[in-house]
């Protein structure tokens, strides 16, 4: 995986799946809120998180990277 592709992937907080924004938008199919809803659903377990916005993309540039976290 290229680093830029990896950076744009979303990690599901529930099942750990990594998916792209486009894959996360598949939950909009058949949902009555699809046009207004900015949530993304994990393609594996359905857990929803807000998708990236202009504000969060801008914020991300100023926040420290999360790569290489020393987790157990």
């Amino acid at each position, binding site marked *: 995986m290229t680093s830029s592709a990896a950076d744009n992937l979303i990690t599901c907080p529930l099942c750990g799946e990594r998916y792209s924004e486009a894959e996360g938008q598949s939950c909009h199919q058949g949902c009555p809120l699809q046009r207004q809803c900015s949530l993304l659903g994990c393609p594996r377990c359905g857990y929803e*998180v807000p998708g990236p916005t202009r504000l969060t993309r801008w914020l991300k540039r100023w926040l420290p990277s999360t790569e290489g976290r020393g987790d157990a």
Partner: protein
Amino acid sequence: MKGNGEILWPDAADGQRPADTGNGDRTRFGRLALVGNPNVGKSVIFGALTGTYATVSNYPGTTVEVSRAPARATGRLGAGIELIDTPGVNSLTPSSEDERVTRDILLTGVDGVIQVADAKNLPRALIVSLQLAEAGIPFVLVLNMMDEAADRGLHIDTAKLSAALGVPVLPTIAVSGRGLRELGEALGEARVSHYRAPYSVAAERALTQIEPLLSGFEIGARGLASMCLAGDQTLGPWLAPRVAAPALDTIEGVCRDLQAQLRGPAGYQLNRARVHAAQQLTQLVTRVVTHQSPLLAAGTGPWTAIALSALAACLILLAGDLHLLPFLEHPAVRAVGWLTIGAALVAADRRAEMRVVIGRYASQPGIGFAVLLVVLYVIYQFVGVLAAGTAVEFLEERVFAGWINPLVTGAVDSALAAAAPAAGIGAAVAHLLRDALVGPYGMVTIALTYALAIILPIVTAFFLVFSILEDSGYLPRLAVIVNRSFRAMGLSGKAVLPMILGLGCDTMATLTARIMETRKERILVTLLLALGVPCSAQLGVILGLFGALPAWAPLVWGGVVIGVLFLVGFLASQLLPGERSDLILEVPPIRRPQLSNIVLKTMARLEWYVKEAVPVFILGTFVLFVLDATGVLTRIVSASEPAIVGLLSLPAKAAEAFLIGFFRRDYGSAGIYALFQQGQLAPVQAVVALITITLFVPCVANFFVIVKEHGLAIAVAMSAFIFPFAVVVGSVVNLSLRAVGLE
């Protein structure tokens, strides 16, 4: 391959697929299906092999979408071949509509399969490989996400795996395109696998009896026979016109005989054998280099002691809040309690051993619930006591009541006084306009005050703490312990996911109820979601109100809501008996939450909330204003008085909170919050109102989703059950609390 494709399948004798099945249907040649577990990268590979254009259509008779596109010439993959991207499956014996569609595509005949697997979870993929082998379908196995597997210390010997399966095995990293060219080359080598699961003697005997009756189809007889033995009811309509009635009777008899010899369901036994075979093969070809071993080998004794001390400290603090023992309320005892919790948090931040201990306890039976209690207590303290007690008071009383509302009211009055006569607006209309903006149901005085002064600070605190929970890896552990409770209720493990998701948004969770196997189960999960699972925003507001209520209030609310869920779930499971399915969830390690992740998630949620909730608040308030202006609101309040005042002992004005709660649950809860702040509700009344509104149908969006998923009749029937049920539960709680002397 003959026909319009370019792949050449050599002779069937060496294990590859015969090109012509003899049924004369030449149009089927050139069809390859991408098959694999959910979310293993099938669509990425599909896109890479086909280019951008694809026909996406619902599979006939279903709502499941299937993509088809002609393949681009890559390696030996010819340009005339059609690729089909099938829905993800965990088994070819379907337990969901998605799995049935994939099985049906294979039943109708494909010339070969590209099986895509997540290299991180090989056993799950090999279960499907076993079924493809039984079905006699030539395939190649693509091990995707090899980089992520390597990151986790998994090293798969693809040559050994290929030899064991008898099919080509290709490592890929689809998102970066690595291995896809080799995949195109390898497709010509697709073969029927000789891989077999070691079924019991009885099962093998039954398969031998059935197989001759199911030969001559596109799909192998052994595959069809194992589906029959597994009791796959969805196969019946496909078999009926194709197999003679006496043969079908024989098959039914063999299945019955096998079932009589087994303790559990035959399908479960067959799957166990496949899981066992898949795990054995995985062990044979996988080498694990884990970085956690030294950590787990190291002593975790001191960290266990700190974790258990923090747990005990939290329970002591909670007992003090509940006034169970006077000395637990002593400031020194509480200070020691908070210091112990703080020490545990600092240790968890700095020491991986501590996180391992917490992770282990958080998903264990018994102590996992104690950990959950601690988590809820900390959230309650942060959201209810700290955020609601300080921020709401400041924003609502100082900013909105003291500054914004008088300013806007003055501005509106001045503007109308100056502009209305000039614009020819009469006094009555001007008065209406004023009321719509700053009146008792005004968009500024009610909608914006509720949204920005009451709910926003509370949900900000809740989203912040929720982001910390998400980033720590606690949520999967919550799912594990909730799963155990659901099994105790007799519900399928699959029901856990929609319930956990419902804590975020009930509307989306209702859509995920599609993963349930039967329509009855889907309806049951939808009912439980609508009945008793508060969404995140509503939960935040409720926690905010708890900060101002006695400590027994959250316990009563939680006990009643969980009790109702258990009762309805238990009763429904008795009415809807069926096989229990397992919840398969990968549990990550407990992680140190990262500030950047927490900030980004909290901000994203807040932005989402402001964009989506505030317009609904304004719309809801406007509807309330119209109802009030036309006198309908008065009639609604009067009509609901017997229930609201008579049964629930609430002031008649609480009917408005229930009414606006239908627009958004959190809006209704905010209405109750405001009534409590204005001194119109005593603690018992507030708890009764919160329980009743939690049990009400969530919101209008959720209602529409229920209509979409199950039809208007079911949605109306659910509402017809839920509304009176919520009032009955509320009135029982009201009487019970008053009977024990609470006010």
